[in-house]
């Protein structure tokens, strides 16, 4: 049971300040695909262009060249099927709206009545472990709580595709595990597609069906790893699996630009 369509990225290039003195080629010909119901993690060093890639996937930034397709539509702007949780969670919350209102705001845009959207918002807040802060204002919450509000807003949108940029960076370790499990559980239960950008290599292996490693200058896809743990994962046993350690070693090696013994080709050219 999956929802939505596949995301196809073909030969995506992104150059900022083209033609100017500050020309900066960030992404050079990225191709990848995310299937419906799949969970894909994107890892890569800071400044590699992970956020840029995610913004292209969300239809928020037009690529310099190349295409992003959702199903058979070419994405030229934000799509109703795609929810985004941005890296700047703090700045993305509206200070004059109560927490529940922030979470429900995208639903108001869809014309959902107040009572219904408030109920949904409170449910989603509950899911991220914020059962009783609905009536507060975002700036009255800690950073980690604000980050969870932004995630709740993404969940409330109830889109078949959920894109999250460093979504668990500011939350404590325990909440982080809970949110990772929540993500996996939503994916399993609702059949949504999840793309998570993360710095955390362990997290990428734990969350992803596939891990896409970005790197190089300009950035290209260095490697795509398939994670063989299925949809039922568990913080203790999955992380203790010997294959888990193997995968994380491989991701780490890729990010650091090291060659692995089994490589026929150099990791970068």
């Amino acid at each position, binding site marked *: 049971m999956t929802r939505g369509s596949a995301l196809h990225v073909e030969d995506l290039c992104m150059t900022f300040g083209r033609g100017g003195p500050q020309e900066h080629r960030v992404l050079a010909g990225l191709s990848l695909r995310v299937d419906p119901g799949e969970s894909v993690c994107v890892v890569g060093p800071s400044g590699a262009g992970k956020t840029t890639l995610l*913004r292209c996937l*969300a239809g*928020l930034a037009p690529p310099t060249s190349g295409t992003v397709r959702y199903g058979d539509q070419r994405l030229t*702007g*934000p799509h*109703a099927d*795609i*929810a*985004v949780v*941005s890296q*700047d969670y703090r*700045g*993305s919350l*509206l*200070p*004059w*709206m109560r927490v529940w209102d922030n979470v429900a*705001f*995208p639903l*108001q*845009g869809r014309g959902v009545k107040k009572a219904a959207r408030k109920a949904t918002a409170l449910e989603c807040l509950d899911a991220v472990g914020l059962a009783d802060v609905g009536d507060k*204002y975002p*700036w009255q919450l800690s950073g980690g709580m604000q980050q969870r509000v932004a995630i709740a*807003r993404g969940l409330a*949108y109830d889109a078949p595709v959920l894109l999250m940029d460093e979504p668990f960076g500011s939350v404590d370790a325990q909440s982080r595990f809970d949110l990772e499990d929540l993500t996996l559980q939503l994916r399993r239960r609702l059949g949504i597609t999840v793309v998570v950008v993360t710095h955390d290599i362990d997290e990428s292996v734990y969350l992803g069906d596939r891990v896409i490693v970005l790197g190089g200058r300009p950035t290209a896809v260095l490697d795509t790893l398939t994670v063989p743990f299925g949809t039922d994962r568990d913080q203790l046993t999955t992380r203790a699996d010997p294959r888990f350690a193997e995968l994380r070693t491989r991701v780490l090696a890729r990010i650091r630009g090291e060659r692995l013994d089994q490589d026929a080709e150099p990791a970068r050219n």
Partner: protein
Amino acid sequence: MRGLQLGALVAVVALWALVAGAGVVSPTALPGPAAVAAALGGLLGSGTYWQAVGDTLDGAVTGLAVAVAVGIPVGLVTGVYAAAEESSRLLVEILRSFPVIALLPVFLLVLGSTPGMKATVVFIACVFPILLQSQYGARSVTPSVHETVRAYRIPRLLRFRRVVLPGAVPSVMTGLRLAATTSVLVAIGVEVLTTLPGIGHMIMEAQQAGASDRAYAYILTAGAIGYSITLLAQYAEHRLLRRRPPARAGEAA
């Protein structure tokens, strides 16, 4: 804090009494506080006084109200649509740097010495601070919020009502506060320079009649009106912004 402020006020009045009492300046140039207070007390019971206050407020409020009705929507819309703002910027810059009072002879010629002319001059003086602050406010939507609103496909009207408007409130309030003070100043200025009825006119009249205590009573009245407007604006601002993070509310103050 309040005590300190009151103390400063008392000190000023005491100094005033001292200077006036010492006879350094003639009592016609600077009557003592007691004389002015007595004159003001007498005026408070007279119909002419309230008529003058009413005339001044009438011109100030009419001009300000039209400035608000025009400046806020135009400022917000031009602020949201950068292109409209580009095209209007030069015009606004030129218009707002014009000293309105210097244009008074032109207005006198075109509109004549009428209450409508007074309101028009007030309007022109007030509309630019409001317009510019509204423009500024509408543009204060951060890139992060803008992107979120886009990503979640918030319809244009809803975005305007729940994102642009609340985001612009602190800035618009600053414009209003500036304009409100300006409105009374300009109304009185026009009255001083023309024969239009109002506080400014009464100041001139009292001075020409040699009744400087009465002239000062009117000047004090003008000050009191200005101060009341500031208080009112602060109160409104406080009410509107009380649900904001402390830093934001402070920024606007």
